[in-house]
């Protein structure tokens, strides 16, 4: 199975979030829990649905990532941009808070 993390948008402010250890939600992809195990991925999805019910977030889904040393990188262009911020405004979004990560 490919390596996946669970991601969603926070209900109240639309911020992109990822599921980390201990069922905690984080704004940083680097803290996300990544797994290749199908059962574990199912568990992540269930936690996502529970968080929808708990009014924390909307539209959770599994997304593929790859490991590059210590870093987790999204596979698709869309998720790269979602994890960092707009490529045309490097001063905005997560990239401005956390410093530069993988850019195109």
């Amino acid at each position, binding site marked *: 199975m490919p390596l996946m993390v669970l991601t969603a948008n926070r209900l109240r402010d*639309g911020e992109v979030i990822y599921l980390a250890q201990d069922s905690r939600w984080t704004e940083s992809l680097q803290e996300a829990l990544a797994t290749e195990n199908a059962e574990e991925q199912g568990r992540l999805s269930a936690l996502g649905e529970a968080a929808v019910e708990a009014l924390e977030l909307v539209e959770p889904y599994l997304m593929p990532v790859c490991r590059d040393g210590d870093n987790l990188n999204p596979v698709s262009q869309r998720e790269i941009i979602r994890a960092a911020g707009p*490529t045309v405004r490097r001063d905005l979004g997560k990239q401005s808070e956390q410093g530069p990560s993988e850019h195109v």
Partner: protein
Amino acid sequence: MYRYDAHDQSLVEQRVTQFRDQVARRLAGELSEMEFKPLRLMNGLYLQLHAYMLRIAIPYGTLSAVQLRKLAHIARRYDRGYGHFTTRQNLQLNWIKLEEAPDILAELAEVEMHAIQTSGNCIRNVTADQYAGVAAGEIEDPRIYSEIIRQWSTLHPEFSFLPRKFKIAITGTEEDRAAVRVHDIGLRMRRNLKGEAGFEVIVGGGLGRTPVIGKTIRDFLPKQHLLSYLEAILRVYNQLGRRDNLYKARIKILVNQLGIEEFRRMVETEWAALEGGDLTLPQAEIDRIAAFFVPPVCATTEAAASDPDPDYALWARTNLAPHKIAGHAIVNISLKATGAVPGDASAEQMEAVADLAARYSHGEIRVTHEQNLVLPYVKEADLPALWRGLQAQGLATPNIGLISDIIACPGLDYCNLANARAIPVAQKLSERFAALERQHDVGALKIKISGCINACGHHHVGSIGILGVDKKGEEFYQITLGGSADENTAVGKIVGPAFAYDEVPDAVARIVDIYQDLREKDETFNACLARLGLAPFKEKLYASH
């Protein structure tokens, strides 16, 4: 411009209260996301890549200085200090929090603004000619009827759950600056043989997955029948438009499927029952609204001023348009500085434009569907001073209508629906063609870029259209040539296989070179293409590919 009366004001205020309650119920779990989504969409609130996006309505693209200042304030307070003017004359803010949206709508209501029906399967913002009221040859100001349609369509109980979104555009002149032939309904003002003013009604145009040029359903519709006729069209569409397939739900599909003859027969049958009824427009209401749109300026013999700075001459050459009232000019404000994000304006720039509008344009601004702004009432005597004010804010790029006046949707940098980025492609092309002498040599050429098939960048109607596609996870771009959004509406044709992200600037540069090599005398890009056909362009473009 139109000013709210007590009814209009009550509506927007009640709408804010209603939405505030809906948000509260959502956050308390009384509404699921599925139930809440259409409600927030009908208040212009999308969930995009980074946050919620709010699309604020700018009815027929007309804004007052007070309203523009409020937009700047909202951009600062609730967003990241900038906004994006769209191809439907609205403003988008990209970093909105759901829990603050009701407060934003409340602030908008204070200045007679809202975000009602800027999304959802309902009738959207009615767009109009950005030179309305001040262009020569205008039959009547199309904004009069845009405002009438705006009110009739607002919270229309029968048409709030259409098969799909519905877009209407109106032009008051022969020149079509509103792209009426690529809208669900396009209205072109004209006179009948008796000299009476009315509308040619065009239906079933649209861009997106299947671009279609609209067909005339009625050659001449007298003014008083405007709303009853629209009601007939919408009723037929609401009942018969497809509900099973999102991509086949626009009215253009229905018109195509039935054929214009049958569609017309159905509409005329329905209209026969509505004609003369309570949707008939009283002349008193037309007159009431028309009074708001009388230009606030009179002819003046005050001498036009100039400025010896050569940059002034360059700006005057491209950014001014002739005004129907002597001694005045229409001023275009370019939001396409070299390398800038097309259509974006900072809060500071918005405030500067508001101040300049208050000073030089009777407090009025227009938004164009090509993502620029307009000051419609400027005295020729004030032009140099205005120019200096615009220059100070980076708003005087002398490129209106030239190749660097690029239209681009937000694309994959912001939008959930996108397949590829559009903005950096625009920026690279803008930089590539920055040299003004070259731009003037190339002449009128519109580059329009969409990040996905939904075509919000209107690429189908660009001289050079660029469509971002996803090819095995990579950003690729399909190029079309020969599109046009004016009165000679045409859909561009695909020139050949798509180009990778890095290849696009060279490909476009090559196309422009080919044009300049092959053109005769002063013919425009589109004229050259019409004369020669795609073949030479295709052959030479892909020769070394």
